[in-house]
């Protein structure tokens, strides 16, 4: 009986807090379509900002920017290769550089809603580049968190 009291009061508390908070979260949300969920289904290893930054500081991984070239030119993660997914078929030089290196790669795009980096990761994996990671938070969060950026 006491357990039931706590479970019911807890539910009411959780609901009340969500109603009162300014940044309310939706009661129901489909997380299955999120890029991160799709990446995990495809077997692509997903990493958050903290890990991407550790790898960047260790200089152990090659970073690849999957965003359109115009966005890359405005600003990008320092020392990154631009490989826009939309023009992948024309990027022979960049592809050659990536496929000929043994260094593991990290692909990223704009933010968590953008799937260009995931699609690029799948293409690279098909080209036998298997040691790759997908930095899911994207360039927006990298820049907001004041991580190293090149303009």
């Amino acid at each position, binding site marked *: 009986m*006491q*357990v039931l*009291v*706590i*479970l019911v*009061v*807890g*539910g*009411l*508390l*959780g*609901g*009340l*807090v*969500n109603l009162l908070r300014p940044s309310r*979260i*939706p*009661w*129901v*949300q489909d*997380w299955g379509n999120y890029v*991160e969920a799709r990446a*995990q289904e495809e077997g692509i*290893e*997903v*990493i*958050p*900002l*903290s*890990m991407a*930054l550790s790898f960047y500081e260790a200089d152990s991984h090659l970073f690849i920017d999957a965003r359109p070239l115009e966005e890359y030119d405005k600003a990008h993660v320092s020392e990154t290769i631009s490989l826009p997914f939309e023009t992948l078929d024309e990027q022979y030089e960049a592809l050659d550089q990536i496929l000929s290196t043994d260094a593991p790669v990290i692909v990223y795009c704009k933010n968590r809603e953008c799937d260009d980096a995931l699609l690029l990761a799948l293409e690279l994996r098909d080209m036998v580049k298997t040691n790759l990671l997908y930095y899911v*938070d994207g360039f927006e*969060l990298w820049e907001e*968190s004041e991580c190293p950026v090149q303009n």
Partner: protein
Amino acid sequence: MNIAALWLAGVELACVAGLFVPWLRAASLWIILGLLVLFSLGIGINLARGSHMACGCFSSSPMAHPIGWFGVLKNVGLMIFTVAALFFRQEKEEPAAVIS
């Protein structure tokens, strides 16, 4: 799925409050134990699947450390404390029952 997350957070809050109310203390401890088992399972399953995301338990910062087996170990430690609290509570009650 968000409803479950909100409900869980509310239950955690209610358990904390319940620890200060004598007739809710045991129930709070049992629920806390159950939650620790649940969370440890969740972390373990995600680690086994190769997920490196932060659990968001103590921080929502993007710089929060990803989940790791140390988190599971920490939870096991907390489970031990919770079981000890339940056991100690029962021992305290038994002498009164014997006398009466």
